């Protein structure tokens, strides 16, 4: 029997809450390493931050991949009600959500084409910890250097080497988000 859990956990004032959430997403994507809080949504089994990003960026035009561990019947119902996003395998996804381990192997995801590098996946990576320490980041959006507790460095270096192709990642933990676009150079701490 269906539950009503899928019907709750959305924005109560979508235009304003989505606008505030997007500004946070814009700030963190423009300034890699910057961490910003977002609030207002709760999907079953996800962090508040990941739920907000889904509501702010995904809809029926964005094929979404739910990785093992995050994928559940309850979440599928929530996605169907709030987003209407088609659930697809990793290879077809415009957005993909899961833990770092569950999203691997990353080679499956779309990295854009030489003529349309924007047609690449955006990963939403659920993290246990998100802090301004660890890997050293340089590149567009960073005045000198920034630090972010990335799950690893090698995958981000390989991704950056593909520039202007490659995927872009949001990191979510509790109510916090951070981001790492493909343009950022990553060095181990």
């Amino acid at each position: 029997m269906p539950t009503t859990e899928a019907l709750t956990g959305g924005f109560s004032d979508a235009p304003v809450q989505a606008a505030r959430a997007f500004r946070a997403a814009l700030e963190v994507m423009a300034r890699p390493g910057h961490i910003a809080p977002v609030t207002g949504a709760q999907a079953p089994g996800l962090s508040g931050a990941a739920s907000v990003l889904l509501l702010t960026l995904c809809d029926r035009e964005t094929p979404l991949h739910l990785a093992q561990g995050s994928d559940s019947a309850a979440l599928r119902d929530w996605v169907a009600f709030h987003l209407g996003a088609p659930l697809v395998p990793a290879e077809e996804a415009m957005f993909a959500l899961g833990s770092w381990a569950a999203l691997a192997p990353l080679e499956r995801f779309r990295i854009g084409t030489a003529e349309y590098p924007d047609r690449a996946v955006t990963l939403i990576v659920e993290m246990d910890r998100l802090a301004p320490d660890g890997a050293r980041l340089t590149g567009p959006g960073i005045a000198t250097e920034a630090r972010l507790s990335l799950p690893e460095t090698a995958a981000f270096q390989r991704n950056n080497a593909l520039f202007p192709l490659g995927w872009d990642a949001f990191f979510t933990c509790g109510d916090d988000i951070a981001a790492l676009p493909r343009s950022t150079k990553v060095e181990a701490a």
Partner: protein
Amino acid sequence: MTDAAYNFAYLDEQTKRMIRRAILKGLAVPGYQVPFASREMPMPYGWGTGGVQVTAACLTPDDVLKVIDQGADDTTNAVSIRRFFERTGGVAVTTRTEEASVIQTRHRIPETPLTEGQILVYQVPIPEPLRFLEPRETETRKMHALEEYGLMHVKLYEDIAHNGAISTAYAYPVKVEGRYVMDPSPIPKFDNPRLESAAIQLFGAGREQRIYALPPHTKVVSLDFEDHPFDPSKADHDCDLCGSGSSYLDEVIMDDEGGRMFVCSDTDYCATRRARGFRGALSSEEDAA
């Protein structure tokens, strides 16, 4: 104050999500033009429909919006766009560069340096820097993919061959992070050095359906040659109202006998300086008092 008949900031939520996704990909690939499904806006193409859509996607109710047209806060285009967002978004507006969190601009970068936390939204007529050299979109797209920008250097070289100097004075092409050649919109080349900024810069072209972006501190180099280095020139004059020797100037014809004056194109910068007591060569008596 908000017109309740409209959604916040006019656009519907699905449209805003589509624009927001394009902005994020634009930030991830600085200088690359992301296609987006530009909507018809309640103003004609050429009046900043691209900039308005980008601004609408970025605004929150807490923002303070400034809109300038060629540096001026008080021209038709600036006034109507500012009123549009006052009515549909209920946002606060200002003419002071330092007080604004979002600035929409047509063809100027404010004289006052922008800071972290500010967003500068450009209205762009022709986003493709190679368009006047190669009219086919399929070809220019391939040229960007292959990083084939020789044609642009030939154009600048022909300028030198014909005129002795690079005669491009506005929309001067730049290379972003050593990869994409980008049209900075028709800002005077005087403004090009300010494209390296602490603010987030977003570019919206409504008719041409493109969005592109520069994250803060992105490396932006104006194209030039070793023996003809880039020169961000301006009128060799001081502002006749505030006396500034470093701002970009408009030339104003005063009469039929060749009388003219030079004034800051950035009205906020000029007014702020005058309020602080700075005076130019043609300041009126009352001003000086």
